[in-house]
């Protein structure tokens, strides 16, 4: 197992560098340059423009600039943002908890609804729960996420006034403790998390349902029913366990979302996470930030898939013995 994991990490590292190289090349090929300054009411003096180009090494060929970035990275430096003029590492540190919190909430909501729904659907395949669940989740999956977001905002924030419209904290709130501040943030994240979760409900619930139905049809399922267990009891007691292993594989791919953030949802709900940072950085040609986020997202993918491999190995003796 260990050599396999080591080999996977090595491959992933090479892939990561290829990805950052391609992203770097693409951003350099786009028209415009950072700190263009042409929007001001007066043009930049030429000597000032030249100093800026020198500061960002814009007169060097882009492969040389990529080499400079890699060298800095190997020294543990992610560079300075062109737009904000702040260390990139500090910016990521500031935004990471927001994206992680939002996506963890969304993941919890998704699993909290989709797994019971999958069990109910599997208890009576093609029964009323199965059909209703399928229609509801497929409808949610089919609706574009920005549309869901606008509908939720209109209903819960504007029409009913139950939840905040956007942002992650209340204006002028003076929280007496960290618990209040946390609750305020969680309160603000209810709508964006619901939106993020809505798209995944369909495939996770169908995934759970299919795995349970398959296991029910097997010898274990038949034996359990012979012992007098109902389909729902079997699904809840044994089917879920059968579905855990494939679900972990799926979760391995969901972890990168915790880091990558959700570009659209963060933009609509004004959540200052990594997704909105990526969006702004691409628009402003902020190379150091885009590259750092690409790297972070790649590392999270690597971490997620490796973690799910290790967990499966630990949980499933069949896999262990097969090796």
């Amino acid at each position, binding site marked *: 197992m260990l050599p396999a994991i080591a080999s996977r990490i090595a491959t992933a590292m090479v892939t990561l560098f290829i990805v950052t190289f391609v992203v770097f090349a693409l951003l350099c090929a786009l028209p*415009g340059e950072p700190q263009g300054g042409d929007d001001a009411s007066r*043009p930049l003096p030429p000597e000032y423009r030249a100093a800026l180009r020198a500061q960002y090494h814009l007169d060097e060929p882009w492969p040389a600039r990529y080499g400079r970035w890699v060298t800095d990275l190997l020294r543990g430096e992610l560079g300075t943002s062109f*737009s904000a*003029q702040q260390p990139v590492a500090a910016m990521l540190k500031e935004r990471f908890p927001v994206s992680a919190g939002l996506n963890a909430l969304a993941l919890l909501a998704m699993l909290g609804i989709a797994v019971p729904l999958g069990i109910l659907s599997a208890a009576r395949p093609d029964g009323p729960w199965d059909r209703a669940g399928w229609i509801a989740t497929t409808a949610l999956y089919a609706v574009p996420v920005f549309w869901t977001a606008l509908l939720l905002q209109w209903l819960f924030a504007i029409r009913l006034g139950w939840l905040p*419209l*956007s942002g992650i904290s209340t204006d*002028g709130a003076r929280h007496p403790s960290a*618990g*209040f501040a946390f609750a305020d943030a969680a309160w603000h994240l209810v709508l964006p998390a619901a939106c993020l979760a809505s798209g995944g409900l369909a495939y996770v619930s169908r995934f759970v349902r299919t795995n349970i139905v398959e296991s029910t049809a097997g010898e274990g399922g038949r034996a359990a029913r012979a012992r007098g267990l109902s389909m729902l009891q079997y699904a809840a007691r044994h089917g879920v366990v059968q579905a855990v292993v494939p679900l972990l594989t799926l979760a391995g791919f969901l972890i990168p979302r915790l880091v990558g953030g959700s570009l659209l949802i963060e933009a609509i709900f004004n959540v*200052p996470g990594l997704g909105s940072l990526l969006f702004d950085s691409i628009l402003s040609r902020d190379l150091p930030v885009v590259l750092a986020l690409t790297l972070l997202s790649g590392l999270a993918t690597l971490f997620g898939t490796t973690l799910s491999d290790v967990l499966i190995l630990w949980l499933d003796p069949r896999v262990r013995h097969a090796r």
Partner: protein
Amino acid sequence: MKRRAVYSFFAAAAALALGACAGSPPHKDNDVRVAIYSDPSSLSLIGNSDLNSSQIASMISDGLVAYDARGHYVPMVASTWEISPDGTTVTFHLRDGVLWHDGERVTSRDVAYTVAKARDPATLSRSWASALANVASFETPNDSTFVVHYTAPYADALEPWRLPLVPEHVASKDANFLSGAFAHHPIGCGPFRFVSHDPGQRAVLAAFDRYWGGRPAIDHLIFKIVSSERTAYESLLLDELDLLAVTPDLWRDALNAPAAARLARFIYYRFSAWKIDWNQNEATPFFHDKRVRRALLLALDRKRFAETVSAGLARPGVSSYPPESPWADPSIEALPFDPRESARLLDEAGWRVPSPGHLREKDGVPFEFTLILTAGAQEIADRSAAWMQQSLAEVGVGMKIVKLGSEAFKQQRKTHAFEAAMGTIAFDATPDRFDLYHSTANVDGFNYGSFSDAEVDRLLEEGRATVDPAARRIVYDRLQHRIDDLQPLAFLFQFAQPVLHDPDLEGIVPSAVGLFQFTPGPRAWHWSSARGRN
């Protein structure tokens, strides 16, 4: 401890939920909440400036002078000044008793420090570096006198001194001006002091009690960072904002929405315009002749478009001196809609219709050009382009429309790789248009169409060097008439800026320089004494 945190979490959640379910209105103090659409790029007052950071900086720190609502210079930290007869030296006398927010006194050394920082490319002080480009040297003979020498007579000698001042005793402690402690917690000498900045959420300023010009009437000025204009508008309807500049579409929505009926509203015009650059370089055969440029504008019924399509939120553009400018010559008016005169001028310029239903031609070249514009900029830009296309077809001129990403658009314009380009332009209150029209401004300036006229060049140079206001006005009147005759650019429209606000918020004065960057600006805003009783 852990248990206490859990209890407080649930208590807070319950309190929030109860508050929301009861539909209780948000608590309002003596604060004003306005929207901005992205984080300020820097809080360092002068560095890495974009529109949002400049707006916030102008609240936190004063310059030596400022614009008033009409765009005239008024004394701020400098109480008086003298300009030498040759226009190369300005001596500023600093006002007594101007304090930084930490209680220290503002001195001429702070002014000198600010200028040196703004001129340093590492500060990325884009607009101020341009304004200070003509400064040859400066000196501080004593704590309350600051003297600046220009490289040449400079009629707009006061313009750079709107620069917000930076306290040397605080900012100089940072090794890196843009990422040090000062850039995270700036100190200024303006009417509002910095309180906090939650990235992506809000920047909060508080009234400075010891402001030399008197404490602002409101306690806090909160800049809420909102992701979109629509969200900001909804926030205003939900009473989460107090004042908002809206797009024409949202303005129309507000006219009909019952939830917006309680709001007060007004429109105002800024020093800005929608214009078309006609490329007059060798590679483009269409726009060298002034008769053609005039004819194209005469073919457009701009008044009708302004009244119908833009619902009264626009007016035909006159020139680069909008009517709000104190330098505008009132005898110059917008060109009328006159398709017959347009056709006559095109015929006269040699662009004739070969047969009915065909495009005009000259030397075998059909008159069909491409207009570039920024994709997704504003809906009104798309409508204007489509309407232009239709109107020009009526006089036998073909126009293709190409939408580009904003960076590609800027790149094409800057490298003169276009035929016609539609975009906006913003002016400051000075009459200097050197960067727009001078033949040398086609390299690093805004003369994207490579317009060149010796008389215009001469007047621009003379205007910059003429210090006497009366003599200067004569020069710029001449320039405006010359520009009106040559029509180097087409000033299509001036679009109005609609504003919605809480009816109890009073003292808002619209100015052509915006709502913030003039004095008194937000310092004069106050809540009505009848507030809460309505």
